[in-house]
Structures are given as structure tokens and as C-alpha cells.
């Protein structure tokens, strides 16, 4: 019980510590540092500008295009392969049109 009270008191004191925080003075030369860094970032923004147009919206659009093109390519490839497979299967088992004709030719 005593331990519990002690912990509750510590919690209260810790939360209360927030109200003892005093206002802090700005570091000396802060203003000069900001004004100086304002004069230099031109180059950085210029460099960043090269790809800055490639925003997440364009990135998603590019990704969707990539997925669609790939899906189409895979689909086409499977369809072509399917026809080839059927053809070679038919040839192997004598089911193709040419062989059937040959089989029924009577001299």
C-alpha cells in the first residue's frame, strides 16, 4: 500500500514537472544563421528540382503503367505458348489436319 502511494506521488510529481519548465532564450546568432542559410539553398533546390516533378501521384501512375504492360506481356506470352503447345501435341499424336488428310488418301 505504501509502495503504491509512493508510485502515485511520483507520477503526480512527474506530470507536475511540466509546469515548471521556463521559457528559453533563443541561441545567440540564431537570426544570422537563418539569414545566412537563406542565401545558400538555391543550388540545393535547383538540384532537387530535377526530379521534384516526380511526385508520389506520378510514381503511382508509373507503377500502374508498369504493372499493366507487364501483365499484358505475360498474358500474350502464355496465349502464344498455348497455341504452340496444342499444335505440337496434335502433330505428335497425328491429330493435325495434314496427317489426317494423309491417312485417308487412297491411290
Amino acid at each position, binding site marked *: 500500500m505504501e509502495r503504491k502511494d*509512493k*508510485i502515485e506521488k511520483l507520477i503526480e510529481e512527474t506530470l507536475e514537472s511540466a509546469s515548471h*519548465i521556463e521559457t*528559453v532564450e533563443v541561441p545567440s546568432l*540564431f537570426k544570422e544563421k537563418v*539569414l545566412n542559410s537563406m542565401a545558400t*539553398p538555391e543550388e540545393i533546390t535547383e538540384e532537387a528540382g530535377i526530379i521534384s516533378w516526380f511526385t508520389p501521384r506520378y510514381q503511382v501512375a508509373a507503377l500502374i503503367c508498369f504493372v499493366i504492360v507487364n501483365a499484358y506481356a505475360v498474358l500474350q506470352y502464355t496465349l502464344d505458348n498455348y497455341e504452340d503447345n496444342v499444335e505440337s501435341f496434335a502433330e505428335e499424336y497425328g491429330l493435325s489436319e495434314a496427317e489426317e488428310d494423309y491417312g485417308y488418301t487412297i491411290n
Partner: protein
Amino acid sequence: MEEQYLIEALRKGDQQAYRQLLDDYQGRIFNTCISFVPNKEDAEDIAQEVFLEVFNSIDKFKGNSKLSTWIYRISVNKSLEFIRKRSTKKRFGFMQSILGNELPVDKTSYFTEFNHPGIQLENKEKSEILFNAIDKLPEAQKVVFTLHKIDGLSYKEVCAITERSLASTESLMFRAKKNLQGLLRDYYVKDQG
């Protein structure tokens, strides 16, 4: 009206206006940043970024809110961005330590070292514990609690910055306090155990 002149001058790139803005806001912005990240050097870096962002995107300021509110919003976002980056680095550092490549990353806090000049020595330990507990709160609660309790802004100002109603802000404060009590209880139970 004076604010309108200042905004117009900033848009024209007037150096005197930049100086004026810095004079008016550097104290408030630095104190907001140090309220989120209790380290003088880190807060200074964030505050610098805030002013650069203000100068670079003053054209995007539509005037729907007060200039001060807009600048406060940038400060909150920049501070949260800093904390998120530090947390990611911390996670990355943890992964590196698992893989055996130790990185010199602070694994205990989201700030490099607790160094808040506005905290007196006798409160330093408790304040550090409090800041670490605040960091574990959900972001919305963290923002409201920090702005009101640490930075000392009024509910009205917090509502304007976070674009929330008074009821919503009060509710977030209530939940933040409750969660902090829980987090601190867990900490002290382990510590006293």
C-alpha cells in the same frame, strides 16, 4: 493590417521583412521546437528549418488563418518529422545491432541528449522521464499535450493550430493525461521493483 504588409513584403523577398519576421517569431518558434525535442542544438536546427520553410512557401500561405498559426503549424510538423526520422534511425540501429553492425545511434531517446535550458536541475530527471513518456503517446495526443502543457499555449491557440474543436482538443488532453499516467505507472513499477 500590419501583418498583411509583412506578408506582402515577404512575398516580394524583402530582406527587412525577413528580419522583422525573425525578430517577431524566433523566440516563440524556438520554444515550440524545444518543447517537442528537448535538446537545444536539435531544436535550433528544427527552428532554422521552420524559418526556411516559411520563407520558401510564403506564396502558399492563403491567409485562412493568422500568420502565427501557420508558422506554429510548420513548427509542429517539422518537429514531428524530426522525431519520426530519429525513431526510424533508432529502429534501423536496432536492426544493425541484431545483424552485428553496431551504429553510433542513440537507442534510448528520440533526442540526442536531454538538454533543455528551461528545466531546473532538480526537475531534470523527472522531466526526462516525462518527455520519454510523451514520445510514446499517439501523435494527436502528443501534439495537444506538448503545445498546451509544455509550450504553455492556450486551448484556443492549440485548437487553431491543430484545426480541431475545443471538445476534441479537451478529449485528446484527457486521454493524453490518462495514457501518461499509465506509462509512468509502468515505468515506476519497474524502476521501484
